[in-house]
C-alpha cells in the first residue's frame, strides 16, 4: 500500500464522515427511501471519485505510450493507430442510412404532430370524463366543485370563498352586501344576459334604495319594504328571479352562477373575467353546487 492510497482512503473517510455529519445535523429522516438512496449515492460518489482518481494517477506515473504508428505525420509529429471498434463504426453508418430513410419516407409519411397528440389526449379524457360523471351525485359534484374553486376562483375569492377581505365577492357572508345592492340600483346592470334584459339605473332612489338594500343584504327576511315592489317586477316577490328570467338575489343558484361564469361581471368591487371556455357544463354545475354549500347561515 503506497502513500497515495493512504491519502486517498483518508480523504474518502473524511467525505463519508461529512455526509453522516450533515445527515445527523439536519435531522434527515432515513426511513424515507428517497433520503436513504440519496445518502448511499453520496457515499458511492465519494468512494468512486477517490478510487478512479487513484487509478489514473498511478497509471500516469508508470504508463508509457505504445502501439502501431500511423503513416501520416504533421511537422514530424505522428500518432498511433486507434481504430474505432467496428461495431460502433457499423452502427454509425447505419444511422446515416436510416437518416436518408427518415427524411424522405419516415417523417413525411408518418409525421408526429404535437397538436394531434393533444387532440387525442383531450378527446380520450373527455370521453372518460363523460362516462364517469354521467349522473354525478351531490357529494361528487361538491368535491369536484371544491377542486375547481381552489384552482380557478381562489386567487380572487380566497380559499374559503370569503373574498379576501373585500377584494372579491364574499360567498360566505350572505348573498349580496348592502354596498353591492346600492351600486346595482345606482348603475343598473346589463351584463349577465338574462331573458329579462337590462336593468335600468335609478329604479329607486334615496330612502327607498336604502331600504331595499338593507332588506336584500339581510337575506330578504323580515318585513318587505314597499319599495321592493319595483324589484319584484323582475326578480319576483321572493327575490328568486322568477325561474331564471332575472338574477336570483335571494340565493345562489345554478342559473346565476352559470351566467356569471359565462359573461364575467363588473360590479361594485371590481371586474371578474369570463371563465366559460375553461370549464365544461358539468364542471360549472359542480362549481355552482360547491358555491351553494359555502354560504353560512
Amino acid at each position: 500500500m503506497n502513500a497515495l492510497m493512504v491519502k486517498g482512503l483518508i480523504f474518502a473517510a473524511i467525505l463519508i464522515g461529512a455526509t453522516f455529519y450533515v445527515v445527523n445535523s439536519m435531522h434527515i429522516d432515513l426511513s424515507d427511501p428517497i433520503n436513504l438512496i440519496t445518502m448511499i449515492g453520496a457515499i458511492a460518489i465519494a468512494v468512486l471519485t477517490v478510487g478512479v482518481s487513484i487509478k489514473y494517477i498511478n497509471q500516469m506515473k508508470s504508463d508509457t505510450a505504445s502501439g502501431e504508428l500511423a503513416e501520416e505525420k504533421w511537422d514530424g509529429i505522428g500518432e498511433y493507430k486507434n481504430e474505432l471498434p467496428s461495431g460502433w463504426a457499423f452502427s454509425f453508418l447505419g444511422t446515416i442510412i436510416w437518416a436518408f430513410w427518415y427524411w424522405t419516407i419516415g417523417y413525411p409519411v408518418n409525421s408526429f404532430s404535437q397538436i394531434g397528440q393533444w387532440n387525442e389526449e383531450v378527446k380520450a379524457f373527455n370521453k372518460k370524463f363523460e362516462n364517469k360523471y354521467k349522473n354525478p351525485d351531490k357529494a361528487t359534484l361538491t368535491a369536484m366543485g371544491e377542486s375547481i374553486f381552489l384552482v380557478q376562483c381562489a386567487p380572487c375569492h380566497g380559499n374559503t370563498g370569503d373574498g379576501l377581505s373585500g377584494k372579491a365577492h364574499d360567498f360566505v357572508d350572505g348573498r349580496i352586501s348592502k354596498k353591492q345592492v346600492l351600486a346595482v340600483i345606482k348603475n343598473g346592470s346589463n351584463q349577465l344576459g338574462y331573458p329579462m334584459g337590462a336593468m335600468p339605473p335609478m329604479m329607486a332612489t334615496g330612502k327607498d334604495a336604502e331600504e331595499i338594500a338593507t332588506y336584500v343584504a339581510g337575506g330578504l327576511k323580515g318585513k318587505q319594504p314597499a319599495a321592493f315592489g319595483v324589484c319584484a317586477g323582475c326578480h319576483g316577490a321572493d327575490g328568486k328571479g322568477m325561474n331564471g328570467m332575472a338574477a336570483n338575489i335571494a340565493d345562489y343558484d345554478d342559473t346565476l352562477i352559470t351566467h356569471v361564469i359565462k359573461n364575467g361581471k363588473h360590479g361594485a368591487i371590481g371586474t371578474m373575467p369570463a371563465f366559460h371556455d375553461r370549464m365544461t357544463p358539468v364542471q360549472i354545475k359542480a362549481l355552482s353546487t360547491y358555491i351553494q354549500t359555502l354560504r353560512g347561515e
Partner: protein
Amino acid sequence: MFHWLEKNPFFFAVGVFLVIAFAGLVEILPNFAEASRPVTGLRPYTVLELAGKEVYKKDNCIACHSQLIRPFKSETDRYGEYSLSGEYAYDRPFLWGSKRTGPDLHRVGNYRTTEWHENHMWQPNSVVPGSIMPAYKHQFTNVADIETAYAEAVTVKNIFKTPYGDDIKAGKKAWEAYRPKVLAEARKIASQMKNKDVKDMVKAGKVPEVVALIAYLNSLGAKRYNAKK
C-alpha cells in the same frame, strides 16, 4: 475504418461545415414559414404595453414565469389554449422563459384583472396564500419610460414593418402629439386601481411602472386579438 478521413484535413473541414450547415437550415428555415407570421387579427403591443414589457424584462419576471403554453391537457386546463408561434410575431424578443417557479403568463389577461394585479404586485400572499413571489412595491413609485417605449414602436415599425398607425413616427413633435394617447390608456387602468400614489402620479402626467406592467399583463391573451371581443 475512418482513418482515411483524417489524412485529408481540408476535405474533413468541408464535411464538418456541410453537416453543421444542414443542422442550421433545419433550425432556421421553419422561422420563415407561414406558421410564424402573425396569427389572424393579432395587433401589435400599444406603447404603454411595450413600456410594461420593459418593466417585465427589467424586474426579471422571466426568471420565474414562462410565456409558452405547451399542447398538453394538464397545461391547457390550467393556463388556456396552447400557444401558437404566430402569436409571438410582435414580441421582440419573445419572453418564453424556461423556468416555472410561478405559473405561465401567456394568457394571464384572460383570467386576471387590474385589481388583482394591483393587490398581487403590492403583496403577493394577500391573494395567493403561501406565494413565494416577492412584493414589487417599487413599481408603484418608479416611473415607466414611455418615451423609450415609443421609440421602440417607431423602430419596429420602420425596420420590421410592424403595423402601427400613421401617428407613430420619428421625431419629437410626433411624440408630443402621441403622448396624451399613452396617458389616456394609463388613466383608464389607474381608474380601476386603489393606490393613491399611483392615481396622483397618473394625474400629474407620469406613468408608474405598475400601470405599464398591468397594461402589458392584461394584453397577454385574447385582448390582443381584434377578431375576438
